C-alpha cells in the first residue's frame, strides 16, 4: 500500500505564517511562546501562549475581505492556510475534479461569540456574527473563498480533530468517493478555551516541557494548517509532485474518562496499532515519532506507556513533541504536525523536543533534544483529545 499522495500544504502558526517560515523556526529552535496580546484576559500575566501575532484586521486585509464580512478569527487563519495549500498544490481550477474540503475545529467562531455575547441586542452591526459561531461556518467560509462547491464537512473531536479530518480525506480518496480533498484544521485562541483548560488545572505558567519529569502542563496555541490529498490518477495525469504520502491511520477511544487518558494508554495503543495495520508497516520501520506530548502530567505518562506497549522489547525510535514551539493548537494540532512530519521526511530532520531536562521516573524514555539529521522514510504522528479520542497518522516518503 503506497498511501494517499499529499501534493500541497499551507500553515499559519505562532512560529510562522508559511511552510517555509515554520520550517525555519523548527530548524533554528525558534519557539514562539509568549504573553497573550490579542485577547484581554485576567490570566494574561500568568499564562503563556503560542499566538499568531497578527490582528484580525491584518488577516482581513490579507484576504481582501469586504468590511461587512463576518469571519471569525478561526475562519480567517483557516482560509489563509487553505489558500496556501491549494496554491502550493498548483491547483487552478478547484472544481475540475471531485474535490472536497474536510475541516476541523474545536471552538469554531467562539472568538467572536465571546467578544460580542451581551452586545448583540444593543449593537445591530454585530448581529452578523451570530451566524459564525458554529464549527460548520468555518468550513463554509473556507469553501466559499476557494470556490469549492462539492463535499464540505467538519470534524470536531477536540484535540485529535485534524488527524481525523486527514484520515477521512484519505479514506474518501481510497474509497473512490472523491479525487481530491483539502484536509486540515483551524482553531483561534479564545477566552473560552483558556479558561476551560485553566479549570482543568493543566495549563503551565512557564514553558511546556513534554516528557520531562517536572512538566507542569501545556501552553495553548492557535494555528491553522491544510494539506491537499490527491488520487494517484490525478498525480499521474498532471505529473504532480508528491510531497509525501498518508500511509496509515487509526482512531480508537480510550473509553476511560471524559478528559483524562487511561494509565496504560489503551486508546493510544489501539490507534497506533490500527495505523500500523492499515499501512502494513512494522513499528521498527518508523524513523521518527512526532508525539502528542502536550506536557500535561497525564498525557505524557499515558502516551509513553502506550508507545512502550507498541515497541515492547524493540528500541523506540527518535521522538519529540513540537508543542514547545507552537503551544497546543487543539483542533489544528494534528494538521500543523502533519506539515511538520512531511517536512521531516523531505528534509531528513528530527526536531528537538525543547525544554526537556529530566527524564520521567516512570519509564526509560527520553525524547530527542537536539536537531538530528538522518534519512526519514516513515513518521508516526499521534494526536489525542478529550472524550478519549485517540488518533494516529503515519506519513511516508513517496
Amino acid at each position, binding site marked *: 500500500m503506497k498511501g494517499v499522495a499529499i501534493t500541497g500544504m499551507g500553515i499559519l502558526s505562532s512560529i510562522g505564517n508559511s511552510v517555509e517560515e515554520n520550517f525555519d523556526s523548527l530548524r533554528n529552535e525558534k519557539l514562539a511562546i509568549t504573553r497573550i496580546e490579542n485577547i484581554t484576559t485576567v490570566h494574561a500575566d500568568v499564562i503563556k501562549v503560542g499566538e499568531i501575532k497578527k490582528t484580525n484586521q491584518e488577516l482581513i486585509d490579507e484576504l481582501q475581505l469586504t468590511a461587512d464580512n463576518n469571519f471569525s478569527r478561526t475562519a480567517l487563519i483557516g482560509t489563509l492556510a487553505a489558500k496556501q495549500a491549494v496554491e502550493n498544490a498548483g491547483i487552478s481550477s478547484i472544481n475540475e475534479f471531485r474535490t472536497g474540503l474536510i475541516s476541523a475545529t474545536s471552538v469554531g467562531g467562539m472568538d467572536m461569540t465571546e467578544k460580542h455575547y451581551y452586545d448583540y441586542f444593543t449593537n445591530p452591526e454585530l448581529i452578523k456574527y451570530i451566524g459564525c459561531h458554529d464549527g460548520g461556518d468555518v468550513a463554509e467560509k473556507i469553501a466559499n473563498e476557494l470556490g469549492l462547491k462539492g463535499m464540505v464537512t467538519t470534524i470536531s473531536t477536540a484535540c485529535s480533530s485534524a488527524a481525523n479530518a486527514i484520515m477521512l480525506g484519505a479514506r474518501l480518496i481510497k474509497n473512490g468517493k472523491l479525487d481530491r480533498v483539502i484536509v486540515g484544521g483551524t482553531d483561534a485562541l479564545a477566552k473560552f478555551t483558556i479558561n476551560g483548560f485553566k479549570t482543568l488545572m493543566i495549563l503551565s505558567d512557564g514553558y511546556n516541557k513534554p516528557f520531562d519529569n517536572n512538566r507542569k502542563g501545556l501552553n495553548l496555541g492557535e494555528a491553522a494548517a491544510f494539506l491537499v490529498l490527491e488520487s494517484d490518477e490525478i498525480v499521474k495525469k498532471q505529473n504532480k509532485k508528491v510531497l509525501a504520502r498518508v500511509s496509515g491511520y487509526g482512531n480508537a477511544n480510550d473509553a476511560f474518562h471524559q*478528559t483524562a487518558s487511561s494509565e496504560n494508554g489503551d486508546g493510544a495503543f489501539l490507534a497506533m496499532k490500527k495505523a500500523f495495520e492499515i499501512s502494513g508497516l512494522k513499528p521498527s520501520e518508523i524513523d521518527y515519532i512526532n508525539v502528542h506530548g502536550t506536557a500535561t502530567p497525564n498525557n505524557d505518562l499515558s502516551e509513553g506507556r502506550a508507545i512502550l506497549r507498541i515497541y515492547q522489547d524493540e528500541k523506540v525510535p527518535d521522538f519529540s513533541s513540537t508543542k514547545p514551539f507552537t503551544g497546543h493548537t487543539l483542533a489544528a494540532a494534528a494538521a500543523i504536525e502533519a506539515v511538520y512530519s512531511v517536512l521531516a521526511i523531505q528534509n531528513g530532520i528530527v526536531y528537538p523536543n525543547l525544554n526537556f531536562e529530566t527524564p520521567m521516573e516512570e519509564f526509560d524514555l527520553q525524547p530527542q533534544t537536539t536537531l538530528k539529521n538522518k534519512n526519514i522514510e516513515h513518521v508516526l504522528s499521534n494526536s489525542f483529545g478529550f472524550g478519549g479520542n485517540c488518533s494516529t497518522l503515519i506519513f511516508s516518503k513517496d
Partner: protein
Amino acid sequence: MEALKLELKNKIITTLNLEDIAIEDIADNDPLFGDGLGLDSIDALELIVILDKDYGIKLVDPKEGKVIFQSIESMAAYISANRTK
C-alpha cells in the same frame, strides 16, 4: 467545626448534583473518593473551586487535593486552619 462540616456536606451535594444522596448518608470520616462517595477527578476540581470561592484558599497543584479531600473531616480541618474568608 460541626457547622462547617454540615455546610460542606450541603455544598457537595448541591454543587456536584448528587440527587440521590442525603446529608445523613455522608459520615464525617467516609472517603469522598473511590469506594466511599464515589467522587472522581472532575469533582476534585469542583471542590478546589469551592475552597477558592467560599473560603479564600487557592490550591495551585490539583495533587494537593488528594490529602485535603480525603473526607469531610479532613476537608473541614484544612479549611478551618487556612481559610481567609
